[in-house]
């Protein structure tokens, strides 16, 4: 450290360091060092959010399970507030998943939730996906579905079962409502993807009996708070790597670098710069005075 830091008004360095950790540049704004505050705020936050956007907003999360722990989060958390929600999300995620379900996630790549999803019924949500079905005239029907799905629990012959309807379009053309029934598979309510997978059977009346004639497969949206900075399952991690390839790696590196750069910023807010105000002139004058050495 040089004497130069004495020439800079650091106010309360501890408060400045805490502010600098929470929001990059905030500590410097507090100290009245607006130029540097603006540089830090713009550069670090833009790098961090560019990284998040490049990685489809799936780059920042904390996985605390043994064997799956991602140490990269400890670099990302240097950015402060933008990365801290990941800790809360991890805690929510771990509470929602029992060890038995975690074992299931290893075995079942689709990782559909077993019976507890009935607790969420009735469920109404926008749906998009595909239909594979045999129509009333016996012909096969398939295509892209886009519309609204409604599911609810009703008493059945062997206990409660799920019934519902899909209303919307098939390949952009309106269709009659589809009747849906068990078996139903719904992705977990919490997950790293903004969409939650859903599949269920389509039933039609054949010879006076409700018969399973096909199924729909697609996704319903997750609320923002149920996916933002939420840990990714192995399947979700594979999917994002498959989809983005090396771009995902770059995106993660962007967020790491943003967090690590903020550590330098926190130190600058706490202790001042390595060369304080005025040292630069001294250095420059020393350079000029020093004669070139000749052998």
């Amino acid at each position, binding site marked *: 450290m040089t004497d*130069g830091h004495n020439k*800079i008004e650091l106010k309360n360095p501890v408060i400045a360091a805490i502010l600098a950790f929470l929001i990059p540049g905030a500590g410097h704004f507090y100290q009245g*060092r607006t*130029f*540097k505050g603006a*540089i*830090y705020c713009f*550069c*670090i936050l*833009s*790098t961090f959010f*560019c990284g998040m*956007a*490049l990685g*489809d907003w799936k780059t920042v999360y904390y996985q605390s399970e043994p064997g799956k722990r991602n140490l990269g989060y400890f670099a990302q958390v240097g950015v402060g507030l933008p990365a801290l929600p990941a800790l809360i999300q991890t805690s929510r995620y771990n509470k929602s998943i029992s060890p038995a379900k975690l074992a299931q996630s290893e075995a079942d790549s689709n990782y559909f939730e077993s019976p507890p999803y009935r607790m969420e019924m009735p469920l109404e949500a926008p749906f998009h996906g595909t239909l594979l079905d045999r129509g009333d005239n016996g012909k096969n029907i398939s295509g892209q579905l886009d519309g609204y799905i409604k599911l609810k629990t009703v008493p059945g012959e062997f206990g409660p079962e799920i019934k519902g309807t899909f209303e919307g379009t098939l390949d952009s053309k309106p269709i009659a409502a589809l009747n849906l029934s068990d078996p139903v598979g719904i992705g977990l309510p919490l997950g790293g993807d903004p969409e939650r997978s859903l599949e269920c059977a389509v039933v039609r009346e054949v010879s006076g009996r409700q018969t399973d004639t096909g199924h729909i497969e697609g996704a319903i949206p997750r609320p923002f708070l149920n996916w933002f900075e939420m840990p990714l399952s192995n399947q979700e991690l594979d999917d994002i790597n498959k989809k*983005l*390839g*090396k*771009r995902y790696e*770059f995106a993660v*590196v*962007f967020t790491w*670098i943003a967090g690590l*750069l903020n550590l*330098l*910023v926190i*130190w*600058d807010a706490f202790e*001042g*710069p*390595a*060369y*304080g*105000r005025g040292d*630069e002139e001294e250095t420059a004058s020393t350079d000029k005075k020093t004669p070139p050495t000749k052998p």
Partner: protein
Amino acid sequence: MSIPLLFANQVNAVVYLIPLLAVISLVYNATRYEIPQIIIQRSIRFFFTAIIIMGALMTLLALLSWNL
């Protein structure tokens, strides 16, 4: 996915490094100096020095892997 991000996926990986290097040089030099003019001068110098060093390394690696 938005069109700019789709486009970004197509460009060479090196393009990602340029803004990243600009950010690193600006923030690093801002933590070392206090006067805005000095920060900017040193950042520009740092940026181009790093570009030259990285370019030299890439050229060296390209030459070493020639005809492999």
